[in-house]
């Protein structure tokens, strides 16, 4: 299957990431953009760029028909879906195939199969991989509360209600006693219905202090599957990963062998090709349970690249071309040093992590040894309100975890984004937390820490800072600084005015 010109059906940093990989391989790139993304970095970096519609994803980045049409008009022979949007949509994968386009990802069948959590559980069981005890069939509206209660008895409390089509914590509820079940069931079904168009849920035993551990893998079209050293993704806020690292402090070598080979057998079980990830819950006693499979390249793939030396996007493309995996499976489960990633969002951590869209007036990105920044942001760019507010992934590598953390702390200090609020102060705080540094955490870590902080500001420091700010402000006036860094495009008045006010109020 030829891959000489790739349409990237995505935006932001992952579109930029894929463009870079294509450049490395001498492959032409076609970007697509919604109205507000016209001047975005991925549009400027690609060889070609085509409009795909208005700002709402449903009318642009999710329009399969438009994307296929643009791919054909532009003469692309392959499509990379990135992550999110249509990356795990079997209809899109199928539409590409039907249009004679190479879909750089797994088969539509694999996406469909692993997209159903219950089907995925069955695949894992068939592969002899432990799963969290729970129901094996979807519980749609037709299943009565009484029946669900009966199943729940067999699993035991506390348990989790999860959406079959779920993800990102939507349609998820914890139930600690039979009495709570009916209400939770109703809530979860309606949330799932509105979020995924499918109200079916399933039951799962609640592991009390689990870590979220996942295994990246690659499969070629010749039956070879390679699994990589694990990623530690327990640092989550509201079920959203915010910090990932590799390797995990909680995974000794023997366990690593078990979870990686288990991941590989699940992939073989379903004839999986291209890049994918097996997610596990790791219990305190060291036992692990298959959680789900992500049939796409993941946001956090760089930490695996940093410790394995493997360019996963290069391999996605080479696999799609039909090349054979030549990686040494023994080598890629041995981490070279340690890597950690912080997902930097346009959110105000001192305001309940409220999205902070707007124009980036100044941007200073860290550099130097062991630092990598995968970003879609540039000075002058407007962070739109329509999409995921992640503006950058900051990755630090070190010979060991200590060095990786030190470099990340240094990079976070160097990183400057002006004009919008970001989660940088949150990460500066997190990387000084003794429990995090010691590796004492599970998936509830951040939410608990945040609760215990009761909204204490992250963007904080010695009172002396205010004195320095006063000095800077006065000299800025004296030295006649620019009255506004605004460029020719629309100013960010409303959000910024709002933030200003909110801050002033918050400081009462």
């Amino acid at each position: 299957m030829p891959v000489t010109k790739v349409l990237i059906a995505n935006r932001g940093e992952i579109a930029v990431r894929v463009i870079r990989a294509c450049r490395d391989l001498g492959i032409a790139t076609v970007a697509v953009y919604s109205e507000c993304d016209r001047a975005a970095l991925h549009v400027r970096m690609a060889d070609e760029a085509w409009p795909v519609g208005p700002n709402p994803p449903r009318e642009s980045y999710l329009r399969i028909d438009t994307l296929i049409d643009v791919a054909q008009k532009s003469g692309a022979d392959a499509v990379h879906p990135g992550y999110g949007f249509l990356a795990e949509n079997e209809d899109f994968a199928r539409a590409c195939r039907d249009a004679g386009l190479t879909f750089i990802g797994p088969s539509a069948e694999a996406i469909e199969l692993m997209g159903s959590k219950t089907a995925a559980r069955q695949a894992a069981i068939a592969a002899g991989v432990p799963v969290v005890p729970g129901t094996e069939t979807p519980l749609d509206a037709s299943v009565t509360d009484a029946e669900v209660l009966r199943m729940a008895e067999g699993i035991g409390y506390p348990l989790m209600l999860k959406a079959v089509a779920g993800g990102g914590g939507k349609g998820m509820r914890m139930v600690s006693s039979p009495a709570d079940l009916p209400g939770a069931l109703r809530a979860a079904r309606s949330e799932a219905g509105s979020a995924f168009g499918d109200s079916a849920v399933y039951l799962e035993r609640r592991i009390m202090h689990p870590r979220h551990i996942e295994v990246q893998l690659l499969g070629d079209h010749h039956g070879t599957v390679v699994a990589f050293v694990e990623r530690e993704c327990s640092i989550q806020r509201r079920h959203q990963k915010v910090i990932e690292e590799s390797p995990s402090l909680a995974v000794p070598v023997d366990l690593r062998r078990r979870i990686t080979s288990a991941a590989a057998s699940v992939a073989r079980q379903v004839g999986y090709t291209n890049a994918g990830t097996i997610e596990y819950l790791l219990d305190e006693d060291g036992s692990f349970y298959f959680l789900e499979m992500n049939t796409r390249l993941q946001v956090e793939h760089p930490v695996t690249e940093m410790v394995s030396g493997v360019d996963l996007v290069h391999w996605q493309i080479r696999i799609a071309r039909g090349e054979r995996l030549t990686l040494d499976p023994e080598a890629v489960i041995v981490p070279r040093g340690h890597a950690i990633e912080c997902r930097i969002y346009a959110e105000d951590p001192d305001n309940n992590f409220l999205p902070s869209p707007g124009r980036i007036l100044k941007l200073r990105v860290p550099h130097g040894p062991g630092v990598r920044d995968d970003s879609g942001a540039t000075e002058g760019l407007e962070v739109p309100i329509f999409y995921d507010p992640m503006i950058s992934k900051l990755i630090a590598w070190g010979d060991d975890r200590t060095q990786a953390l030190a470099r990340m702390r240094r990079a976070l200090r160097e990183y400057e984004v002006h004009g919008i609020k970001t989660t940088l102060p949150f990460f500066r705080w997190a990387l000084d937390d003794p429990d995090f540094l010691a590796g004492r955490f599970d998936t509830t870590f951040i939410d608990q820490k945040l609760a215990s902080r009761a909204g204490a500001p992250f963007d904080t420091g010695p009172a002396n800072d205010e004195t320095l700010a006063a000095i800077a402000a006065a000299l800025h006036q004296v030295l006649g600084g620019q009255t506004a860094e605004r460029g020719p495009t629309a100013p960010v008045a409303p959000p910024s005015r709002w933030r200003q006010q909110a801050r002033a109020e918050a400081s009462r």
Partner: protein
Amino acid sequence: MQYDVLIGEHTRKVVVQRAGAAWTVAVDGTVFDVDAARVDGATLSLLVGQRGVAGPSRSVPAVVVSGKMPGALAVHVNGRQLPVTISESGRARRRGAAAAGAGPQRLTAPMPGKVVRVLVAPGDDVEAGQGLVVVEAMKMENELRAAKAGRVVSVSVIEGQSVDAGAVLAVVE
């Protein structure tokens, strides 16, 4: 030059005087020797020393971005963003009060979005930090909270309604 510089709740008197190639800056009476150099229209490199303590050697890079309102600045020092309101002495108090959001609190939408839940009704008493309205934007639900305790005098949106940035959602008095 003499300025009133409002940061948070506290207004500082800042007096700036030339001292050769550098500056003497007094903040509420504490005197600093400051060497200041511009990098670009928003970026300053300051070398700060406290009078009698050390030479002006502490390196303080600062970025000063102007806001919409006159005198409203966002000052970045030591990786922190501090909203500052500055004015030549005498004219600060009123603007300060305004910036501090005295009087009725008008809860506005931070960005365009959809109201998914209204958590209070007119007449309700609310605590500082209590959630008033939930707005969905950027694929996330954001609970907008009261900045101070009071009574809800009006709610101007209903669930499912789309709102623009800056739209008033509720007023608390």
